[in-house]
């Protein structure tokens, strides 16, 4: 508390400055087209500005020797030494060259779209969300490290904040920003402002992982007619994209239009396909010299057939690391059971008002709405239709020594040769349903879609004010309201006449209680047809209000800032079905939860000279539990986790930065502790015949490590780049596990989980080293070797409990204990990436190509993720019964893009 009082006092003290500032100005032009480029970041020391619609920039610094850096996502960064005198410096026109057809855009986009896996928490790759053209480490992490699901400092997606025109893009309920919401709009989402780590921004204080704001106002998008076609062999094979934008015109209007289509009939993994579109329209009107209004409408609808992780036995039997259990043949055609179908359009109105030379007010209001659905097979009193159900594997038979040895051998043969065994047998599912029709029974097999449809209204207004040459004050007010509708809808009855809307597991466990098995007592025994909602149906309502302020102080040798933020989050569940098991607490509103949170941040920069900087940042904040992690069994009732508490985060970082004409480098030591985290996962347990939710509370962890990034200009044309992260991310507590069966067949069980000092999953060590080549004839080439290590598998809580140890029935120090409880370490690995590109100018037309080849050496053995199955067989411990599921990184892939601009 004393610390906070001190921060407040510091704000109130006005510092006097006697030094005289000089102005550095200039204009940035494209060296091919000679057109001005808006949105280029110009940096001297820690002072930063962006070029305006006409490419002009102005920066105030003290007289002295500096390195000045120009950077943007579409341009090759450029650093030069300048001498600023007291009378200022006019650099005139600065020419910058386009990165060869924006070579990396495809990489980032594709890698992010690859999170096709069911388990979004482990599949989501956040590194590509990062952007900072100015930082060697971040550049490397977002492109080279994305192959192995590397996460910056090991942080979860909820700690990397994304904004669009100042409005938050991170989902209110799960905390994560989803790249797919603006996927395929590469040309119009390049205009970004971003900070890495704890450093706050002018648009938000951020948390610990950095924040990025995408500016979509048409006036900030460079004038262009851009058509591109890309050919690839990753999750999609083809992309066409067209962008037209006017730039700010003399009549005060700017327009930007963009659209794309990405598709694959057969994606990299068998049985996957991809069908995505995107559209974007933005209009900006300059109402006066100091005031403009912009309206943006965008969306990226997509459908894609997904891949799932599998156990090693399945990969071995099928002979490929890209075995995908989600598909099977239907009349000779491949059909995938897991289709993700998403369309979340957004509309954003942004007002930019320059109140005076020192004060800028930015206000945005946005609304987004749409669908997020994933289909899956469901079945009723019938065999599990999934080919990788554990009992279908030879290992299940081998485990039973009474089974004749011919049987597992026969099963292995079938797995290897018969796709009706190793994949879903759709034709058979239909025939079983037809037989059910004959006897008047309900469907045995269906395809259903689980929907999480979100509507979000957000508002953010923030002020940036230069109080004097040394002090700037920034602050904002943000209000956010989100409503997510969770339900299931029948997609395909697979030839059956109807589906009976009862809980079949309850039906079996409570045969005499016909109410208990009802999913909706208000509509009992409903016959469900395609298009009907069924199963469960509820809404989560979430509201957040936030007030933040940031004071920045800049002096000749030192700079510092303090930031404060207060927020209030409240949410509740509203059930739309009266569940038969829970007639008293399933329908209607739950208790409304309310959490007050605050955040403090402070940082200090010491400028040894125009080239050497020492920076330290620290933050301490509390954070509301996510709605996703607050309900025990939200599909069926309003029950909340007991003792819900705010998460407490304390983080610090210390950096040395060198900025020179030849060398740019940063080394940072960081440490963040997370305390009182909550996490809820669910799985189907066939022992209880029920979905079981596992709630972990009191998770503490610490993330510490060293980040290093450098680029060295070896010659005018060749740059060497390198980045390295050495991490140590560990759990530091023994959380409490609560298991709740949705059908109530067993009472809740609570255990202590012995996971202290376990490793946080994902690669903790990663490095990349490479060369970039750029010449004046617009040739571009690069080569990078990437290394990943210290990767640990995501682990399940249940085997690490005292109860599990008792169930094993072994004495202390029995080796089986460590076999059951030890965390699985995955093998590290290397990948090699190459790219080449060139652009030509013919009259006023530009033609470019670039080719990226990732994982050139075709390393197909790099496990990039996975998880232990949450089910644990207590009775008979058998390591083969529920083995972990893995994902393998793609082998050699390419991305070839042709661009035509005029």
């Amino acid at each position, binding site marked *: 508390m004393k610390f906070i009082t001190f921060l407040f006092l510091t704000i109130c003290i006005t510092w006097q400055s006697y030094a005289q500032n000089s102005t550095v100005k200039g204009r940035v032009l494209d060296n091919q087209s000679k057109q001005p480029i808006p949105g280029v970041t110009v940096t001297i020391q820690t002072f930063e500005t962006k070029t305006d619609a006409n490419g002009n920039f102005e920066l105030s610094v003290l007289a002295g020797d500096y390195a000045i850096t120009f950077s943007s996502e579409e341009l090759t960064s450029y650093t030069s030494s300048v001498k600023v005198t007291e009378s200022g410096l006019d650099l005139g026109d600065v020419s910058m060259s386009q990165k060869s057809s924006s070579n990396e855009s495809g990489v980032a986009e594709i890698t992010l779209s690859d999170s096709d896996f069911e388990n979004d928490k482990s599949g989501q790759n956040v590194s590509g969300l990062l952007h900072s053209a100015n930082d060697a480490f971040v550049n490397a992490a977002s492109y080279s490290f994305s192959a192995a699901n590397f996460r910056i400092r090991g942080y979860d997606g909820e700690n990397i904040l994304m904004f669009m025109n100042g409005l938050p893009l991170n989902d209110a309920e799960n905390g994560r920003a989803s790249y797919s919401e603006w996927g395929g709009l590469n040309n119009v989402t390049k205009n970004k402002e971003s900070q890495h780590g704890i450093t706050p921004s002018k648009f938000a204080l951020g948390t610990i992982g950095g924040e990025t704001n995408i500016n979509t106002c048409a006036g900030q998008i460079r004038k262009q007619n851009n058509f591109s076609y890309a050919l690839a062999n990753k999750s999609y094979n083809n992309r066409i994209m067209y962008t037209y934008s006017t730039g700010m015109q003399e009549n005060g209007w700017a327009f930007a239009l963009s*659209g794309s*289509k990405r598709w694959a009939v057969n994606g990299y993994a068998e049985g996957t*396909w991809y069908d995505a579109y995107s559209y974007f329209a933005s209009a900006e009107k300059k109402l006066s010299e100091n005031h403009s209004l912009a309206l943006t409408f965008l969306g990226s609808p997509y459908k894609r057939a997904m891949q799932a992780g599998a156990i090693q036995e399945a990969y071995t039997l099928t002979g490929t690391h890209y075995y995908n259990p989600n598909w099977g043949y239907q009349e000779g055609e491949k059909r995938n059971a897991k289709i993700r179908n998403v369309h979340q359009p957004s509309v954003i109105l942004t007002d930019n008002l320059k109140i005076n030379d020192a004060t800028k007010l930015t206000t945005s209001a946005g609304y987004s709405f749409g669908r997020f659905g994933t289909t899956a097979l469901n079945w009723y009193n019938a065999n599990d239709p999934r080919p990788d159900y554990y009992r279908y594997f030879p290992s299940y038979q081998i485990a039973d020594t009474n089974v004749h040895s011919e049987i597992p051998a*026969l099963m292995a043969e079938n797995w290897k040769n018969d796709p009706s065994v190793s994949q879903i047998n759709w034709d058979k599912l239909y025939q079983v349903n037809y037989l059910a029709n004959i006897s008047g029974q309900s469907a045995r097999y269906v395809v259903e879609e689980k929907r999480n449809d979100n509507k979000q209204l957000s508002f953010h207004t923030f002020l940036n004010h230069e109080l004097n040459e040394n002090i700037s004050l920034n602050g904002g007010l943000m209000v956010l309201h989100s409503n997510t509708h969770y339900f299931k809808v029948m997609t395909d009855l697979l030839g059956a006449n109807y589906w009976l809307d009862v809980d079949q597991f309850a039906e079996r466990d409570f045969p005499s209680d016909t109410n208990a098995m009802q999913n909706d007592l208000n509509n009992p025994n409903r016959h469900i047809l395609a298009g009907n909602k069924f199963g469960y149906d509820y809404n989560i309502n979430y509201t957040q209000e936030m007030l933040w302020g940031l004071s920045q102080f800049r002096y000749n040798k030192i700079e510092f800032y303090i930031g404060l933020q207060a927020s209030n989050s409240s949410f509740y569940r509203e059930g739309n079905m009266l569940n038969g098991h829970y007639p008293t607490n399933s329908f209607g509103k739950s208790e409304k939860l309310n959490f007050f949170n605050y955040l403090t941040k402070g940082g200090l920069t010491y400028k040894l000279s125009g080239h050497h900087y020492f920076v330290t940042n620290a933050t301490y904040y509390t954070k509301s539990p996510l709605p996703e992690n607050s309900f025990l069994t939200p599909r069926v009732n309003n029950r909340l986790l007991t003792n819900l508490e705010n998460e407490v985060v304390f983080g610090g970082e210390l950096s040395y930065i060198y900025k020179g004409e030849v060398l740019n480098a940063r080394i940072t030591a960081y440490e963040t502790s997370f305390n009182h985290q909550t996490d809820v996962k669910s799985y189907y347990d066939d022992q209880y015949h029920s979905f079981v939710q596992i709630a972990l509370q009191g998770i503490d962890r610490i993330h510490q490590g060293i980040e290093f990034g450098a680029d060295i200009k070896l010659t005018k044309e060749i740059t060497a780049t390198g980045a390295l992260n050495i991490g140590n991310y560990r759990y530091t507590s023994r959380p409490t596990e609560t298991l709740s069966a949705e059908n109530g067949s067993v009472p809740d069980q609570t255990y202590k989980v012995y996971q202290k000092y376990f490793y946080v999953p994902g690669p903790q060590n990663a490095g990349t080293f490479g060369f970039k080549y750029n010449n004046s004839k617009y040739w571009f080439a690069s080569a990078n070797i990437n290394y990943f290590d210290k990767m640990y598998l995501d682990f399940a809580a249940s085997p690490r409990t005292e109860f599990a140890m008792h169930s094993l029935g072994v004495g202390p120090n029995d080796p089986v204990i460590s076999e059951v409880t030890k965390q699985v370490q995955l093998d590290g690995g290397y990948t090699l990436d190459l790219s080449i590109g060139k652009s030509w100018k013919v009259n006023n037309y530009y033609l470019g190509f670039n080719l990226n080849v990732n994982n050139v050496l075709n390393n197909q053995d790099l496990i990039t993720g996975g998880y232990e199955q949450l089910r644990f067989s207590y009775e008979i411990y058998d390591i083969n019964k529920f083995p972990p599921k893995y994902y393998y990184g793609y082998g050699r892939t390419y991305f070839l893009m042709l661009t035509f601009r005029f």
Partner: protein
Amino acid sequence: MNKIIKKVQILLFVTVIIYLSGCVKGDFDQPPINLPTVDFTANMTIGELNQYYSDSLNSASPVLITKDIIIKGIVVSSDYTGNIYKKIYIQDSTGGMDVELDPTPQATPYFYNAYKIGQRVYIKCKDMYMGNYGGVPELGYLYNGAIGRMPYSMFSTHLFLDSFPGKQPTPNIVTIPSFSNSMISTLIQIDSVHFDSIEVGQPYSLTTATTNRTIKDSNGNSLLLRTSYKATFANQLVPSGTGNIVGILGNFNGTWQLYIRDLNDVKGFN
């Protein structure tokens, strides 16, 4: 020049729109209903098979069927309630057969989805085993050296459906004293019987173990009704009064037993 640019722009937009009009497969057709048929015929009756392998009844270890024997029969059992479990009973005019099947795919078997009562099935017996359990012939596979269930992975090469399920087979109406070995594993009906008065009002099965209830005819002949504790009707109560009972006839080391498929097999009591 501007006109050319405009034309190019229009062209690009048209190209984009053409591309936007789909190329990834959308909805799947519903496949036709397959009428299951077999392209071979049976070469032995169930009665003949029982006779042919009668030595297996006297042997402790099962006998491997090495000849190309094909039998056909009508399914008379259902595992819908779980009372009959991990097996199907088929019969023809010459006798019945207990076909032991391993539902490995699932803890709970759902054979009734594919092998409905009234369904005609063909069984290619070669490479299967014949054995006996308590004196009842069983067709299946080796398990721990004894006769056991045929694993799921062998179904597709040994079990064949023929046509759609026909009408429910009519049980053979018999009396307790007339039971003979040829009736084993067939569907029978015994008329005018009652439950032992001590057991009336008791559940069909206790919750922990498979339970025997006694059925008696008016002459005092008795028969055990054996019900699995896993049957969905296990906790229902045995009725008083007199009625008719349908079921699959079994035998365990000389003791006759009857298994009902569901409570519809207990007819007309009270």
